């Protein structure tokens, strides 16, 4: 039977198991919208296309499935670019369908024509301009396959209007045929053996885990292997949740996991940065030695031999020299390491590791994450701690960017993968609210909280309307410090306290009334004793709630490694 391109589009999406599209219509995708009601796919109408891309991204991070968004040509397409770049930096599988002017008009500067393939080429894993309806099914199949396999990433599919209007026989290909694309998933046995020999010999090992552990669904293996070799574990911002910060005993009482060091890097914990600085072996798993992690490269784990597991060969040896590179899927590599360790356990491990773990304990005691509680004014860290406590540590947390993001990373003790959604690589303010909506779409019954700053939240606040209209009960906690706080912190420390362009005092809307104007619930806390009641109330309401916490304006995020310094050179207060 012949089908129109628009119908083929939906048939393909169904076969890919797509349950929701985040979209915004316009002239060039009207045929798709015309077709939409005939198909059993949920459409979430966003209020800005950037929001659509972040929602697809949040959906993907929370579920591990491919997120989908659909926008019109021209400005609809360009509005997604920040979202695409965000997903690209953090290796998130999304497929962005953009409308395009009819093929005959491409290149004519037609109304709402833009070369979105050209614009997004540097920030996508791959992209397609579909010029013939006969290619549509194959391209969609490939797009989903590419998005989720290997190192995941965003794919753009540009759909000229005449292509989605044209008809052809629908056949969905069973297999993809991509002669240039064969990601190495199987870790090399010889390399695994060599790596394990190094691990066996090491006295001060540290596992440095990144987002790849989450993408590769390798958290269980990571925990198992770390416990087998009794190696402490730190993670990047992207890796948070890949290793349990806390464990529960049979009565449900929570205690810190003894091998967990917390996050490392610029705002990492003292013990994580000190452990890495003194390690004799660094096992990097699905992490990419990003500059926010390493600080000054020559000062990063200077005493250590490096083993690096990553599915993307370009990540290995890019910024640091690696002694044992292992290209492969994190899960596969860790499974093989576990097998090797089972066959060949380290003798006297307890005693061998004791001094190292003791030393780490001393570092932790000397400088734990802390802040000074103040009965007069709300400390932002206190709000995060309370959100952690009152959510039972079980919420999906998204963040905006800045101090709010770092406090969320430091003070919410993540125990499961896919519960911390944050723009790490690109650092996109405005990410948190739409990402929360995307996650909530996937998990309508879970608690989803966006920990936000008063600056960032306004970058996509319009999506509150999307949450309200679609009955998505996301919670937003604004840590209103009346500054672009993280930038203010840099000005305080490195720019002579010249707070140019960063003060938001008296220049934010009344967030409670704004929430109400959108049809959400607005709550406010201005004193420490109001924090807990506000959070409790918000969590009990099955509608979107925006919490406005007036917090201390001068609070800084510490520890902090100043740019260009080694990570052992932390400012502690």
């Amino acid at each position, binding site marked *: 039977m012949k089908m129109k391109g628009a119908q083929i589009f939906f048939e393909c999406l169904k076969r890919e198991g797509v349950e929701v599209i985040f979209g915004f219509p316009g002239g060039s995708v009207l045929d798709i919208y015309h077709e939409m009601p005939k198909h059993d796919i949920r459409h979430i109408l966003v209020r800005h296309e950037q929001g659509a891309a972040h929602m697809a991204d949040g959906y993907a991070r929370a579920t591990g499935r491919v997120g989908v968004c659909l926008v019109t040509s021209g400005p609809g397409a360009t509005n997604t670019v920040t979202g695409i770049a965000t997903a690209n930096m953090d290796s998130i599988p999304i497929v962005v369908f953009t409308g395009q002017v009819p093929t005959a008009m491409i290149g004519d500067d037609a109304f709402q024509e833009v070369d979105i*393939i*050209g614009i997004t*080429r*540097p920030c996508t*894993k*791959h992209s397609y*301009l579909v*010029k013939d309806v006969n290619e549509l099914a194959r391209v969609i199949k490939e797009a989903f396959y*590419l998005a989720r396999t290997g190192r995941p990433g965003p794919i753009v599919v540009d759909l000229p209007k005449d292509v989605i209007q044209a008809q052809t026989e629908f056949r969905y290909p069973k297999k993809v045929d*991509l*002669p*240039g*694309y064969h990601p190495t998933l199987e870790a090399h046995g010889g390399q695994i053996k060599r790596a394990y020999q190094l691990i066996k010999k090491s006295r001060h090992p540290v596992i440095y885990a990144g987002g790849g552990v989450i993408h590769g669904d390798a958290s269980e293996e990571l925990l198992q292997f770390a416990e087998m070799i009794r190696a402490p574990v730190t993670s990047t911002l992207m890796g948070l949740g890949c290793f349990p910060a806390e464990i529960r005993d049979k009565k449900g009482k929570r205690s810190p996991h003894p091998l967990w060091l917390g996050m490392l890097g610029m705002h990492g914990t003292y013990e994580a940065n000190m452990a890495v600085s003194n390690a004799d072996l660094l096992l990097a798993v699905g992490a990419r030695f990003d500059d926010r992690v390493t600080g000054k*490269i020559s000062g990063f784990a200077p005493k250590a031999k490096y083993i690096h597991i990553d599915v*993307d*060969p*370009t990540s290995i*040896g*890019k*910024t*640091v*020299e690696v002694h044992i590179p292992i290209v492969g899927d994190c899960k596969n590599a860790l499974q093989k390491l576990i097998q090797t360790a089972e066959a060949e356990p380290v003798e006297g491990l307890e005693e061998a590791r004791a001094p190292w773990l003791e030393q780490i304990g001393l570092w932790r005691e000397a400088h734990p994450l802390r802040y000074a509680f103040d009965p007069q004014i709300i400390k932002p860290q206190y709000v995060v701690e309370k959100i952690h406590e009152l959510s039972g540590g079980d919420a999906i947390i998204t963040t905006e960017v800045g101090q709010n993001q770092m406090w969320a990373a430091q003070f919410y003790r993540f125990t499961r993968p896919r519960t911390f959604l944050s723009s790490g690589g690109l650092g996109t303010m405005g990410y948190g609210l739409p990402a929360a909506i995307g996650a909530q779409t996937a998990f309508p019954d879970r608690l989803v909280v966006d920990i936000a700053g008063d600056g960032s939240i306004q970058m996509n606040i319009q999506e509150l309307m999307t949450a309200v209209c679609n009955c998505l009960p996301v919670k937003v906690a604004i840590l209103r410090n009346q500054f672009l706080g993280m930038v203010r912190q840099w000005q305080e420390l490195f720019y002579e306290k010249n707070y140019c362009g960063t003060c938001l005092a008296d220049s934010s809307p009344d967030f409670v009334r704004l929430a109400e104007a959108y049809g959400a619930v607005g709550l406010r806390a201005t004193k420490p004793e109001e924090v807990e009641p506000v959070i409790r109330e918000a969590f009990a309401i099955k509608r979107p709630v925006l919490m406005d916490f007036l917090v201390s304006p001068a609070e800084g995020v510490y520890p902090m490694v100043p740019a260009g310094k080694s990570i052992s050179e932390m400012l502690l207060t």
Partner: protein
Amino acid sequence: MENSSKHRHTIGILVQNVPGVLARIVTLFAGRDFNIENITAAETHEPGLTRITLVTTGDDHILSQIVKQLNKLINVIKVFDFRDTEFVDREMALIKVRAEAPTRAEVLRIVDIFRAKVVDVSPHFYTLEVTGNESKIAAIIELLDQIGIVEIARTGKAALARSKKH
């Protein structure tokens, strides 16, 4: 990473001949601050496949990144990193040179020595075609420049590994 010395390198790239494939390669080089000294691209004998030869500069570390990043492009089927392989490379240049009565004989002598060809003749100019490796092309240009080169068009390099395909 520590810096080994910078070198020129020739890289062969076999790609699917799909729209935008060259743009992807060039975007990659521009975006990552890799250098392209010259680049050639043309279809191969196999339908749908294009072979690109590219000359770049960089130390070993950069070259490794270039090779890996190229391999990561979905439409790139194979990258030939000639670092550890012997290869042959050739380039063709069209050179329009001033050829008035007093210099004509000299131009023809140079043509003869370099096994070049005269492919176009006009009252004042000869256009020469010369094929060879880099040093040969450089040498003829140097000689002809003393007589008077008007214009040059060079193809850039084409390169293949010696003997067996690798």
